[in-house]
């Protein structure tokens, strides 16, 4: 018998096999649709609306609460910038947990978008000898300063250029976002990010029902699934409504400043023009929009 190994027969077999696999796995039509959902940026307004309604219903079923899922686009004439006063930060980590609650990060396994690094004043900014697990009775500790690190919202982000499926990109207002449905979990972006700002859902993310934040943005704090990458979005669900990010509002020492870089009267512009400012790993030409400054 002639062995049939033509391309045609291979394709035929593979399609038959996948069709039967789909049928056997009991995959519902809805899940299939979800699997074939397009990249967020290619969705029409109508498709977006439908998708959001579906997701809101899905979350309601899962968490038994009313959700508001926004897909609000960037405002005209905004480019968001952030400044953090190193001379003020006392390392209390309130921002870390405010961020977790606002942005529905997984509690178990734990994901933190903000890492507060404790550094020795003698050594200056020295990542190698910094400590993220410091846990004294009270902070600040003698002879130390604190450097919170989160997504630096680079103007030339390396994470977006390496993404093989374009699941992550920079929005017109400068926020680097992830389409969790389009992310394939290859984690190239995590390797490319020089700030360790991206986090992977190794396990199924768990958020207590009573703690979930129901004000969401599609590109921000909606619940993630296992196997996708997430990161700080400057609280996209808040800042596109005109509000300050959660970390700015919780900071007990007022070290965190946020604003529109294109508005010459904004706090952030005042800082850039009048204070001593630095960015992390400047030599990599990532051009962060997250600045550190000395307010004293």
């Amino acid at each position: 018998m002639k062995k049939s190994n033509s391309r045609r027969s291979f394709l035929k077999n593979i399609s038959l096999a996948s069709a039967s696999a789909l049928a056997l796995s009991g995959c519902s039509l809805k899940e299939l649709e979800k699997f074939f959902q397009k990249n967020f940026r290619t969705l029409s307004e109508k498709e977006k609306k439908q998708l959001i309604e579906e997701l809101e219903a899905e979350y309601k079923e899962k968490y038994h609460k009313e959700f508001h899922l926004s897909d609000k686009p960037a405002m005209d004439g905004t480019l968001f910038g952030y400044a953090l006063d190193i001379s003020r930060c006392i390392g209390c980590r309130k921002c870390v947990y405010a961020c977790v609650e606002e942005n529905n990060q997984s509690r178990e396994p734990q994901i933190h978008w903000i890492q507060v690094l404790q550094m020795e004043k003698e050594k200056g900014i020295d990542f190698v000898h910094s400590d993220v697990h410091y846990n004294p009775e009270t902070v600040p500790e003698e002879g130390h300063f604190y450097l919170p690190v989160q997504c630096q919202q680079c103007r030339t982000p390396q994470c977006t250029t390496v993404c093989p499926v374009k699941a992550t990109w920079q929005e017109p207002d400068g926020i680097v976002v992830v389409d969790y449905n389009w992310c394939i979990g290859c984690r190239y972006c995590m390797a490319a990010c020089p700030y360790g700002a991206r986090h992977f859902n190794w396990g199924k993310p768990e958020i207590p029902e009573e703690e979930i934040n129901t004000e969401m943005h599609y590109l921000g704090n909606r619940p993630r699934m296992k196997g996708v990458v997430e990161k700080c979005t400057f609280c996209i669900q808040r800042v596109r409504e005109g509000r300050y990010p959660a970390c700015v509002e919780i900071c007990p020492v007022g070290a965190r400043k946020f604003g529109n870089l294109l508005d010459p009267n904004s706090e952030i512009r005042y800082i850039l023009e009048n204070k001593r400012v630095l960015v992390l790993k400047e030599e990599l030409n990532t051009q962060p929009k997250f600045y550190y400054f000395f307010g004293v």
Partner: protein
Amino acid sequence: MKFKSIRMRQLKRNRHFGRWIPALFMLVVLGACSASGSQAEQEEADSNLKAGNVVQYTNESTEIAVEPPPLTDGIFPCNDCHSDIVPNPQRRELVDFHDDISAIFNHDSENRWCLDCHDMNNRDSLRLASGKLLSFEESYKLCGQCHGEKLRDWKVGVHGKRIGEWNGKKEYLLCVHCHNPHSPKFESMTPEPPPVRQEDIKIYEPKNQENDEEK
């Protein structure tokens, strides 16, 4: 001369235009006034003032203090007690009352004492070095006498905490909300728990039945 006549004509035209300039200016000013001082905003600001809150106007937005100054419960108005006491301008350590403040006082204590900031004759007021009296709501002006640089940074929103809208209404705190005026060093606090060490994150252990099924 031909050249001269052209110049004259230009000048005339300019003069003609010049008549319009004040009118245009008036329009711009009127426009700005109606934009910045909208009635609703004004009313809101007024109601805040009545509630004892502090209102500040900047170029575009109204800024409102989150809370009135944090006075100790039951201590204000000071004149309830002080109106019956003959003021004693002698610098001394307080022992009978306010001894709790004397005990923690650490704000250039070598050179200053109560009556450098509190008015001797009207204890419900603070007093600037110039002799001008201030309400407790305006205490930031008193702080700014020495800490001018901080006051400047605070006014533009660089020093101190603000909440609200990055492009709109902001709420701010007074100096005394974060700094005890009698001992202004920011108090240290207990940090939130550190992140779980990577080696302690167990994701492969089944936590419940659902996870079991997933495997």
